[in-house]
């Protein structure tokens, strides 16, 4: 048993830290906040060259076939940098294509994703705002040429830059996943302005949007279990990013408490501040254990991997909210200013708290598993 990173994993972490420290400074993140696309093509290409985009893809498609632990390491570092961009939606969608796609679909999408030439995203949430696949109301009806999709998807991550959307819809066979061209007829994208300017979400309205039979990903009617597995993976990935953002907030709060003086001494010498920082560290360390246990469980196909994913999302979601909030409190007024960088990370964590099922959602999943 070894809970520590292997030398290779540590190397990946170090190189991710170094790359993001250089390319995703707070100033660089702020530039992207104001950018209409919200991401940097140059950085995206460099991430591809570093092997990040193909990190967990099979070698046949230019990937490195690494696991969720390695993904979590990268995502934690991205959270720590509040790095904007469609990285996680794209690798999650790639995972779906790898799991369920035909050879032709894999060829069409996985290699371009690994090289940084394609971006993808999954439209989980429907009009109903329920993360359970059963709640999806979007419908696909058969037409002469294939299918026509109708419905409304909400809060789809990075849909405005995606080369392909993965859209689950109800068919007579059951829930089915479709690969949809964002430029298809009858499809309207409506970007939403979110509290975190680095989190780009959009509504996708489908009004009889036509797709061919070849657009079905996996077997018709079989999308439910796949979506559940993707949600588990999404939960762990989001938890990893929240962990990174929370640790950044903790580091900033501790650093500030050491230098900010009031009443003639550093505020970190006051128990009111020091105890807050100790509690924040406790939650960050427990979050680390939760994220990497869950990531390992997914890779090892451990019996409790779905449970661990829900535990990680529920625990880290709550913990990151508290840690980031307390970081603002430790900073006082400066932490409330736009100019100071703390809110980059606070908002990053907050945005992810609501994605891939919030803490309440995952607590209910936990109870279903352990109190059946």
């Amino acid at each position: 048993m070894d809970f520590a990173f292997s030398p290779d994993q540590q190397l990946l972490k170090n190189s991710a830290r170094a790359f993001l420290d250089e390319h995703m400074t707070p100033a660089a993140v702020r530039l992207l906040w104001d950018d209409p696309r919200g991401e940097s093509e140059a950085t995206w290409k460099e991430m591809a060259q570093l092997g990040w985009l193909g990190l967990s893809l099979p070698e046949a498609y230019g990937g490195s076939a690494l696991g969720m632990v390695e993904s979590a390491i990268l995502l934690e570092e991205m959270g720590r940098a509040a790095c904007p961009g469609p990285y996680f939606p794209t690798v999650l969608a790639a995972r779906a294509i790898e799991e369920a796609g035909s050879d032709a679909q894999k060829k069409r999408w996985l290699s371009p994703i690994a090289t940084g030439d394609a971006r993808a995203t999954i439209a989980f949430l429907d009009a109903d705002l329920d993360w359970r696949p059963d709640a999806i109301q979007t419908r696909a009806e058969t037409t002469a040429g294939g299918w026509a999709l109708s419905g409304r998807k909400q809060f789809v991550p990075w849909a405005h830059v995606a080369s392909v959307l993965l859209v689950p819809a109800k068919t007579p066979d059951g829930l089915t996943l479709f690969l949809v061209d964002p430029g298809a007829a009858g499809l309207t994208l409506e970007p939403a302005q979110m509290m975190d300017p680095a989190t780009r979400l959009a509504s996708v309205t489908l009004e009889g949007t036509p797709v061919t039979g070849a657009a079905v990903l996996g077997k018709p009617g079989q999308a439910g279990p796949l979506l559940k597995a993707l949600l588990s993976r999404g939960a762990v990935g989001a938890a990893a990013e929240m962990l990174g953002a929370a640790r950044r907030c903790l580091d900033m709060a501790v650093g500030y408490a050491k230098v900010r003086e009031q009443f003639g001494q550093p505020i970190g010498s006051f128990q009111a501040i020091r105890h807050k920082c100790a509690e924040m560290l406790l939650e960050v360390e427990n979050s680390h254990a939760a994220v990497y246990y869950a990531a390992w469980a997914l890779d090892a196909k451990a019996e409790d991997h779905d449970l661990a994913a829900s535990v990680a999302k529920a625990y880290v979601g709550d913990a990151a909210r508290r840690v980031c909030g307390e970081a603002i409190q430790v900073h006082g007024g400066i932490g409330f200013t736009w100019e100071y960088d703390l809110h980059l990370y606070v908002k990053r964590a907050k945005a992810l708290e609501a994605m891939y099922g919030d803490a309440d959602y995952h607590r209910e999943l936990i109870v279903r598993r352990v109190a059946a």
Partner: protein
Amino acid sequence: MDLTYSPEDRAFREKTRRWLDVNVPKDDAKTLDERKAWHRRLYEAGYVGMLWPKAYGGWEATPMQQAIVQDEMARAGAPPAINGLGIGFIGPTIIVHGTDWQKQRYLKTMLTAEEIWCQLYSEPNAGSDLASLTTRADDQGDHFRVNGQKIWTSSGPIADWGLLLARTDSKAPKHKGISCFLLNMRQPGVEVRPLKQITGSSLFSEVFMTDARAETRDLVGSLNQGWAIAQTTLGYERGANSLGRVTRYAIAFSQLVRATKELRRGGRPLLEDPVVRAKLGKIYAELEVQRYAALRVLSSLQKGESPGPASSITKLSYTEFEKRYFELALEILGPWGQLIAARDEFEEVDTSSGEPGTWATAFLWSRAGTIYSGSSEIQKNIIGERVLGLPKEVRADRLKA
């Protein structure tokens, strides 16, 4: 990163489980003699003193094996070994700081529980500020004369010996005038009075020392070095209970789930109430995180790494969790959760405290963990200063010193 147990650890777990299947006393060991006999069987099987050096009667097992034994004992509902404070803390102190004579005289009988040990540290006016203790040990040439009062002494009435901190130089700054002794508890000058806790039972005592005698040969380390000895973090039992503790939480959780299925409110089982479900989910998520964190600590101990002040995070984490756990459980269970005497087996619960009882017992006990062995506030000071490197606070006693 690999969180699978090694084949050796799996085999060790199997072996331990089989041994416990055969050997756990059918009726709980209740009398002192029964508890000592059980302890002795555990010791002879290699399950007590597991990390002690072989030279002193220990087994030189691994931290993981020690944690596995505690885990399996929790699973089997086995009574704990009896001399926990001695073996976990006092023995290792003697091994590191004691004389050869002390090691020969005290260690073996401690391991076999022929002699029971207690710790004489806290005083009515020296709790978190332990170094302000006022119990005196005056040098009489061939022995020290001890006068003062200790409190919160576990195993007081059954203890044969105590590890005592007493002031030997009242003029020195408070941290520099304290010495450490091994005190015979079976002498006329030592009186033990059980202290009734909020649970109604008496697991702690007050100890009054009136012209009691501590032999010069029982001074541990040098004169006036007692504070440094008390501050030494000794790793022999670290992580020992980490898995067993979580297993007891999990056993209690399954009892809680059973209760939410059987108890009804508003015409349906409690388990169908969404508010109850949210609370259950919160408890279970935190319980699992405690397990993951325990694995992380154990994996680091296995590699011979010392957590140092970071062990304060572990202690703070599980004791604060226990409070939330049993608070939520009592919110879920309503008046039924406040039964302090079980009417049948269904109403008993694994309280995690070592004292059998009900949900109310567990709830009350959960208030102790964040106070003993360094309160949560002291742990947060340690984390703040020694882990996060925050500046020390300006303290009145430091200004004087």
